[in-house]
C-alpha cells in the first residue's frame, strides 16, 4: 500500500503535510544544498516586512534544556529585495510556497498583501501576528482577538491569496484568537510561534541574549504546542498547521492526532537538515503499518474513553 499523503488546507494544496517553518529555513537557498526542496510539502519563508529590517543586536541565540531561545528580531531584506532576489529561486520548485509577512501597523500588512497579490506562484500568505503593534503602544497584534479580526479581515479584502494566520502561544486563550481569525476569513491557522523566554549568564550577570528576552522553540515547548492545537481544533473548523518542537515523525504524529492537518518544522532543521524528509517518510510508514490509506483520515484521531 502506498498511502496518499496529499492534503488540502482550504484552497491550499500540499503534496505532503510537512512544511518548513518560517524563519528557520531562510528563503530556501541554503538548505537546497542539503535536501531536494521538491520533496517538501511546502516552504514558509522567513518573515518579510515592507522595508528592510536590521533585527536585534547579538547574541541572538541561547540554548536552554531541550530548547532554543532566539531573538533574531525579524531581520530581513524587505519586500523589494525579497521579490527581486529571493522569490525567483523559490519559484523553481514544485512545492507549496507560503510567504510569511509582518508589520508594525495594519497598513504595512495591507501593502505587503497587495503587492504579493500580483505575484505568481505564491500559494498562501502566512500572517505573523506576533509583532508589536506600534499604534496600540507596542501591544502584540496576536494577543487581542479584536486586533486579529480587524487585521485578517482587511488583508482578506485586499488579496485573494489564501491566508494562514500564525498564532502566538503567549496568550490566555489561543482558541479565542483562532476564532477571531476564522471569522475574519483566514483559510488556515499555524500554531504555535515561540514562547517568550529569557536566560541569564550567572557569571557575567548579563542576559544571554542581546535583546534580553527571546522566543523559545524546540522540543521543550512541544507539549504546550500540542495542547494548543487540540484546544483550537475543538473550537474552530479550520485546518491547522502544527508547529513547535517537532524532531521526529512520532512528534509530528502527536500533532496530527491532536488535530493538525499539516506540520511545520523549525528548530529541527538546524540539527538535521534532513528532518523534514525523515518526518514525511515516517508519517508514510506509520500510515502503512496501520493500514491507513489516506493521510487525512488520521487528523484528530484521538482515542478518548
Amino acid at each position, binding site marked *: 500500500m502506498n498511502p496518499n499523503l496529499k492534503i488540502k488546507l482550504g484552497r491550499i494544496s500540499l503534496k505532503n503535510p510537512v512544511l518548513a517553518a518560517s524563519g528557520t529555513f*531562510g528563503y530556501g537557498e541554503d538548505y537546497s544544498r*542539503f535536501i531536494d526542496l521538491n520533496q517538501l510539502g511546502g516552504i514558509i519563508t522567513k518573515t518579510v516586512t515592507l522595508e528592510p529590517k536590521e533585527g536585534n*543586536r547579538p547574541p541572538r*541565540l541561547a*540554548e536552554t534544556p531541550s530548547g532554543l531561545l532566539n531573538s533574531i528580531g525579524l531581520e530581513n531584506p524587505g519586500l523589494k529585495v525579497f521579490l527581486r532576489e529571493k522569490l525567483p529561486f523559490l519559484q523553481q520548485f514544485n512545492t507549496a510556497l507560503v510567504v510569511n509577512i509582518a508589520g508594525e501597523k495594519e497598513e504595512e500588512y495591507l501593502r505587503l498583501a497587495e503587492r504579493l497579490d500580483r505575484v505568481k506562484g505564491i500559494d498562501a500568505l502566512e500572517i505573523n501576528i506576533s509583532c508589536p503593534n506600534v499604534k496600540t503602544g507596542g501591544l502584540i497584534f496576536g494577543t487581542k482577538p479584536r486586533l486579529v479580526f480587524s487585521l485578517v479581515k482587511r488583508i482578506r479584502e485586499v488579496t485573494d491569496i489564501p491566508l494562514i494566520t500564525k498564532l502566538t502561544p503567549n496568550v490566555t486563550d489561543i482558541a479565542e484568537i483562532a476564532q477571531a481569525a476564522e471569522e475574519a476569513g483566514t483559510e488556515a491557522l499555524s500554531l504555535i510561534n515561540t514562547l517568550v523566554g529569557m536566560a541569564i549568564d550567572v557569571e557575567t550577570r548579563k542576559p544571554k541574549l542581546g535583546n534580553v528576552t527571546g522566543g523559545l522553540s524546540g522540543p521543550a515547548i512541544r507539549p504546550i504546542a500540542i495542547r494548543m492545537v487540540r484546544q483550537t481544533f475543538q473550537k474552530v473548523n479550520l485546518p491547522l498547521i502544527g508547529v513547535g518542537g517537532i524532531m521526529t515523525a512520532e512528534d509530528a504524529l502527536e500533532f496530527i492526532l491532536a488535530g493538525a492537518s499539516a506540520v511545520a518544522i523549525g528548530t529541527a532543521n*538546524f540539527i538535521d537538515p534532513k528532518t523534514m524528509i525523515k518526518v514525511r517518510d515516517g508519517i508514510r510508514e506509520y500510515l502503512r503499518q496501520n493500514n491507513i490509506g489516506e493521510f487525512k483520515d488520521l487528523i484528530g484521531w484521538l482515542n478518548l474513553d
Partner: protein
Amino acid sequence: MYQVIAEVLSNKNITLNYFKITLNAPEICQDAQPGQFVHVKVTAGYAPLLRRPFSIHDTRDENLEILYQVVGEGTAFLSQKEKGEKLDLLGPLGQGFESKENFRKVILVAGGIGVAPLYFLAKRLLNHDSKISDQAPLKSCHPKIIVLLGAGIRKQILCAQDFKNLGATVKIATEDGSWGYKGLVSDFLAETLLPYSKPDLVFACGPLPMLKKIAQLSRKYRLSSQVSLEQRMGCGIGACLGCVVTSPEGYLRVCKDGPVFRVNQILWERL
C-alpha cells in the same frame, strides 16, 4: 557543502583538556579551504540541542582533523567518541582565509585553541598541500611564515613542532612566562614584531580581546588582517541569522559571510 556521516578514526587527548579527533570524510576534505569549519552533531539526544562548529584543523587525503578544547557539555560529549563511532557533519562551511596577491611575509597569530584553523592555513600557504583552491590559490612561491602561538601556560601551547616541520618560524608567548615571551601574544606582536617589519598579511584566530587588539594594530600599521570570529550558531549555513556580528553595513553572518573576516569588515566596538 555536504551532510556526511563520518567514522571516527581516532580521538586523542593531546594535553590538558585539548583533544584531536580524526574523521573519515572524503567529500569534505576534497572541498575544504583553510578557515572553513564543520558543524558537528555531538550527541543523538537534545542536550546539547544544537550542533557545534569546529574549524578544520587539517585534512590528509580523506581524513579530517579537528583540534578542540573541552569547555562544556558539547565538547565533553565529543571527547567521549570512540574509534568506529559515527558523527554527523555539515561542511565544509563558511568563507575561509583569503590571499590573492603574492606576498613575502605573513604572520599567523594564535591565541589558545585559536591555533586550530591556522595549521591548515600554514600548510596551504607553504604549499605542503597539493590541493590548493582553484579559484584562489593561496600562494605560489614560498613565503616567510611566522607563527605566533600564545597561551596561558607552557602546556597550552599546541602544534609548535608541527608548524616548525612545515618550515614556519615559530614564536611563543605565555602569560606566566613559562615559555617564550611573558605576556599576551598580541602584546608580543605589538612590541617585538610590528615596529620592525611590516608583514603583507596577518591571519589570526583566538579570544576576542586578542582579536580586538589585532584590529587596533592593523589600523595603526595599515595591515591587511584577517581574523576568524566565533558566535553561537544555529543552522551554521546562513539561514537562521542567529550568528551575526556587526559590520559598518549591517549584520554579517559568522557562518556564511565568515567565520573569517577582514578586520575592517567588523565594527569592533560592538563586539
